[in-house]
Every structure is written in structure tokens, then in C-alpha cells.
């Protein structure tokens, strides 16, 4: 049972505040992913939990105990570093055993744990090697092994896969998911890769500029983004986001962007003569006939992947629109197509970027 709570956590380096009062609750056994663009404070927040950075305000609570002044070594957490941070002068075995030796654990127990972790991570053949003689993926496993043997209250990962090549990253991602299922510990994982976040997390915490933009289950974030930042960040390829002027038209609103007008029903909170942003995901745009169309666009690029097709289209007054279609489409560059947005899946955001509606009535 490990509950981690952050209450109004603030971090400042000198004059510069980089974390602006974050509240967060992490439940026992949960896999939480911090995701966000570079510099948004993911690592800082993780290091605050680890105890490697002191908070400037607020409190960190682990299992009901405020740990603000408890040193990292006594918080009972284990961290896997982006650089792996393996001790270069120790064998793989020693690397994993080091933390246990610090705790004065009996030899046999250490041996048992290290062997077990090595078997789990399939690094038994390398136990006597130095980290220098291992590949990136193997070092990664050792770093994870070093965390596992300590049987910590929670695992902290700071972009553990970012030094691996794409293929290995996907493989390790699956292994990590399997590992979490097997070990069942609380895990906090930092990444800037939203695919990693979607596939691994029970809960995603999207950070933006030192604030929590939104926290929730992956699909909740996908389906019900709370603001344009989350809408644009979660999902690959990105959601199409279009800025528009709002005009009343009797039964509902017209969203006008340059030459393009999208007609939508009444949306609570939306006001005429204000500005707004609407969003529609690539898979929620259909290709239709001319009469039915919201937008008529020219195909700039068509990516045929066999099982699915991505079209990148341009239309007057709109940013580039990404369209996702299942199967193969006989569409070529320069061709003019007619697009219809699925109203039930459209998102509308107010002038401040906060959501007004996730899905419109049809």
C-alpha cells in the first residue's frame, strides 16, 4: 500500500518558479505517467517526489507521512534514470546488490533477490560483466533490476526508454507493462512521448508549463480533453484544431474561419461575437458528396499504409487538416475532396482554451 500525495507543491529555482502549485493523488499499485512537452517540469516533479529536489512550497505526502524533510535515501523509493546511472566500476551483479548491501541485508537474501530479478529481466548471462560491456537495452534492464531488487514502495522512471532505438523502445514498453502487471507496484513514469503514456498508464497527468493541464484515464483524456492543450497533445496524429469567430444563426452558431463556415447547434457557454476553437480528430472526418460537405479541400499529401490511409488536406482559411480513413483510398495529391466532421465527436473550446463541449448533439 503506497499512496503518494502532492499538496500545492511549488518549486522555484531562485526567482524562477517552475512548478506552480500542483495537487496530485497517486493510488497504490497505480501506473501514473507524467507527460508533457520539454521543459514543462516533469523531471522536476518526479525528483521532488524522489527527494532529490526540495520543494519551495506545499508538501509531499507518502503513506500519510509528510516527507518534505525526509532525505531521498529514507523514502523507500527507487528510481530509474534516463542515463541509467549504473556504477561503471561494478559488475551488473554488484550494481543490483549495492542498495541491498547498504541496508545490511544478509548475503543469501541479496543473492536470491538479484538472481530472481536477473531471471525476470533475462540478464542472467551478464551478471559478471561491467555496464560498459552491455548494449543500451541491457543497461536499461540492469537499471530496472537495480530498482526491483530493493522492493521499493514505488518505482520512479525518468524517460527510461528515450536512449533506445524505436524498435527496442516498443519492445521495452511492452515489457514494462508486463512487469507492472507482475509486480503490481506503484509506478510513476515520466515521458514526453504520448504514445508511451497512452499505452502504459492507468492515469495520465498532462503537465504544461509547471501546471497540471489534466489528469485522468488515457481514454478520458482522449475523449474528453479539458482544454486545447490536452486536446492537441494527446492523440497521434494530432487533433485538428481550428480557431474561429462565433456568429449566431437563429437555431445555433456559425463557426467562421476565413472562407469556411461550420454550422453547429447550440453550445452552452458559447457566445456570439466571441472567438472559439473547435477540434475534430482525424478519424472523425468522413469523405462525402459535395452537397453534404462541411469543407471542400485539396489533398496535399496522401499516406497509404495499406490498412489505413492518412490524408493531409488544405482549405482556404483553415490550418492543414489531417484525415484518417480505414482501408485503402484511391485518392491522389492535388485531388479535391469533400469532408464532413462528425458532430457527435467534435470538441468546442472557449476563448480561454477551456472546453465547452466534448461531442455536440446532432
Amino acid at each position: 500500500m503506497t499512496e503518494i500525495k502532492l499538496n500545492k507543491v511549488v518549486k522555484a529555482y531562485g526567482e524562477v518558479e517552475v512548478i506552480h502549485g500542483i495537487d496530485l493523488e497517486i493510488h497504490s499499485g497505480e501506473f501514473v505517467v507524467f507527460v508533457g512537452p520539454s521543459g514543462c517540469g516533469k523531471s522536476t516533479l518526479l525528483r521532488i517526489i524522489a527527494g532529490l529536489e526540495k520543494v519551495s512550497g506545499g508538501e509531499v505526502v507518502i503513506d500519510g507521512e509528510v516527507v518534505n524533510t525526509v532525505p531521498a535515501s529514507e523514502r523507500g523509493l527507487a528510481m530509474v534514470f534516463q542515463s541509467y546511472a549504473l556504477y561503471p566500476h561494478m559488475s551488473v551483479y554488484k550494481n543490483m546488490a549495492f542498495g541491498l548491501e547498504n541496508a545490511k541485508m544478509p548475503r543469501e537474501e541479496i543473492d536470491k533477490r538479484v538472481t530472481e530479478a536477473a531471471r525476470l529481466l533475462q540478464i542472467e548471462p551478464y551478471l559478471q560483466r561491467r555496464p560498459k560491456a552491455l548494449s543500451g537495452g541491457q543497461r536499461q534492464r540492469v537499471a530496472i533490476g537495480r530498482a526491483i531488487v530493493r522492493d521499493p514502495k514505488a518505482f520512479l522512471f525518468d524517460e527510461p526508454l528515450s536512449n533506445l532505438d524505436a524498435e527496442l523502445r516498443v519492445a521495452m514498453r511492452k515489457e514494462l507493462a508486463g512487469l507492472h502487471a507482475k509486480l503490481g507496484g506503484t509506478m510513476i513514469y515520466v515521458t514526453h512521448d504520448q504514445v508511451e503514456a497512452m499505452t502504459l498508464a492507468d492515469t495520465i497527468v498532462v503537465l504544461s508549463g509547471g501546471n497540471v493541464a489534466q489528469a485522468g484515464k488515457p481514454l478520458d483524456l482522449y475523449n474528453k480533453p479539458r482544454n486545447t492543450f490536452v486536446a492537441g497533445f494527446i492523440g497521434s496524429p494530432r487533433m485538428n484544431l481550428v480557431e474561429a469567430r462565433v456568429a449566431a444563426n437563429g437555431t445555433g452558431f456559425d463557426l467562421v474561419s476565413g472562407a469556411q463556415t461550420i454550422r453547429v447547434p447550440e453550445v452552452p457557454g458559447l457566445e456570439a461575437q466571441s472567438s472559439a476553437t473547435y477540434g475534430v480528430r482525424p478519424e472523425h472526418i468522413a469523405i462525402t458528396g459535395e452537397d453534404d460537405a462541411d469543407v471542400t479541400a485539396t489533398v496535399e499529401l496522401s499516406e497509404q499504409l495499406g490498412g489505413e490511409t492518412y490524408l493531409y488536406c488544405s482549405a482556404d482559411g483553415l490550418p492543414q487538416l489531417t484525415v484518417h480513413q480505414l482501408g485503402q483510398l484511391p485518392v491522389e495529391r492535388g485531388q479535391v475532396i469533400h469532408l464532413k466532421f462528425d458532430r457527435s465527436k467534435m470538441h468546442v473550446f472557449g476563448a480561454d482554451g477551456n472546453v465547452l463541449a466534448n461531442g455536440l448533439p446532432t
Partner: protein
Amino acid sequence: MAFDTDPRAEPVRLSDRVYAILALPAMAFFRLFEWPLRFLQRILGIGAMPYVFLFPNLAFFGIFVITPLILSIGFSVTGGTNLFLQDRPYVGAEQYGYLLECGNHLDPTTCREDRFWRAIYNTGTFVFFQVGFMVLFSLITALILNREIRGRGFFRAVFFFPVLLSPVVVALIWKWILLRDGVLNAALVSMGLERILFFVDPTWSMFWAIFVSVWAHMGFYTLILLAGLQAIPPDLYEAAEMDGTSKERVFWRITLPLLWPNMLVVIVLALIKAVQIFDEVFVLTGGGPGTATQFIVQYIYTTGFANQVQNFGLASAASVVLGVVLFALTIVQLAVTRRKDEG
């Protein structure tokens, strides 16, 4: 010119312009060599040019290092008091025999050349303590200077400063401090304590010889160790912290092993320099009281040049013995640094 209009070119800084102007005389100087070098290249061919460039240095090395080396071997196997080698009778290993012959090698008074053996024992004592303290203090200083302390740059400069002083200056500074009427004794007297005659007491003399040479050279070794400390990735310390490692264990199990290559370099360099000790101590104590701080190099100097009878043969033999010791230490140093480069 094409460079001036290249949009990617960095803007020319003022300091660059200043350097360019300062460089003009240097360029004019090197122009002087252009014609002779072209001429040499024409007559010797391009393949010979590397040797042409190496020649001046090799010539100096040959005249001032190799020739004296061969000469001193020559002097060491000849006898008499003549300066010119062709006038000196060949005596074989006699000088070495004289130098090395002892009733009991652990007791200098039983040796035929007891001053040499005394110098060896003095040097041994000096090297043992000087290298020990040198390594210990430069390590401690480096560890402190590696922390985030206020005025770190200032302290680094302070500790390095003595390295820049000439050994004679260093010795004179301390001599004035330690003399009978020196600053230190003045301070002791003003505190109501007894004056200490440092240079009359053999133990004090040895102590100050060691102290002053450590003070003078510590900055250099501190710098080597500091570089080593800064090359240790900070991540490792954070990992160790997460692993619940105590401060002492971090030092013994992480810092020291990772610093060890630099430590070895420091130990071996300090050893070589300590065995060669002469100028500072000679100015400070003159080897006294008696022969209490007389070291091998001073023995060689007095035997060869300062005594009434200038015994070049014996001095050369002692030099050769010292040379062999230094050569062995240098081999060790090379092996150590090579292993560091590979590791």
C-alpha cells in the same frame, strides 16, 4: 571577400580583431622562415620535411639530455679528479662499489660512503611522508573545492597560486617565517611562548621541509583530482542516494574507485618529484642541521661541485643510481596513465 558576405558567418567580435592585430608581428616573424623552408623542401624533398621540423628539438634534446647522460655514465666508470674524460683512468665499477658498500645496509654509519646512505634514508623518509601528506591534503582540498561553496573560484586560485612561484622564492618566504627572528617565532613570543629554533632541531627541519614542499605543490595535484571529481557523473550520486548509501560509503565505494586513475597519476607524479627534491629544501635548510635534511640530489651536487675535492666520478655514479630509480618510476607512471586512457 566571400567570407564577409556569408550570412552564416558569425559576427566578428572585438577581441578577435585585437588578436588579429597582435598576431601581425608573429606572422611577419614566421614569414622569415618561408624562404629557407621552401629551399630545404626543394633540395630534400617533401618526405624529409617532418625531420626538418623535428631537428631543432632533437638537437636540443641530444645536446642537453642525451649527451650529459652518456657523459655521466662515462664519468661514473672513471676515476681521478680530472674534468676531461680522456684524462681520466678507467676504473670499472669501482665508484659504484664504493658508493654501495656497507657493513649493514640499514645502518648508514657502517657504509663506506655514509653521506650517500644517509641521503638515501633521508630521502626515503621525506618521500614517504611528503607523498602521503601530499595525496591526503590534495584529495581533501579537491573534495572541498568540488562542493558548491561560496567563493569557490577564489579558493581554487588561492590553492593553485604557490605552484606558480619559483622554488627559491617559496623557500625564502618560509625561511623568513621560520628563522630564529622570523614571523612565526615573533608570534610565539608575543603569545608568551618559548621561541623554537626550527633549523637547529633535525625533526623540525624535516617537518618544515615536508610541509613547505607540500604547500608549494599541492595546488597542482589538487587540480588533477578536481578534474577527476568533476568527471564523475552527478547521476551516480543521485542513484547512490536513492540506493540509501551513507556518506562514507559513497566516498569509499563510488568517489574513490572512480577517482582512482587520477589518484594513481597523482601518487606516481608526486613520488617522482619527491625523489628529485633539492632546490626548496636546499634554500630552506641547506641540508641541515648536520645532514638531517640532506637528500640524494644535494649529495650529488655537493660531491660533484661544492666539495673541496670535486669528485665527478662518485657524483656521476650516484646520478646514475638515481636515474635508474626515476626510470623505474616513470615506467610505472606510463603504465598507469595508459591503463587510465583505456579504462
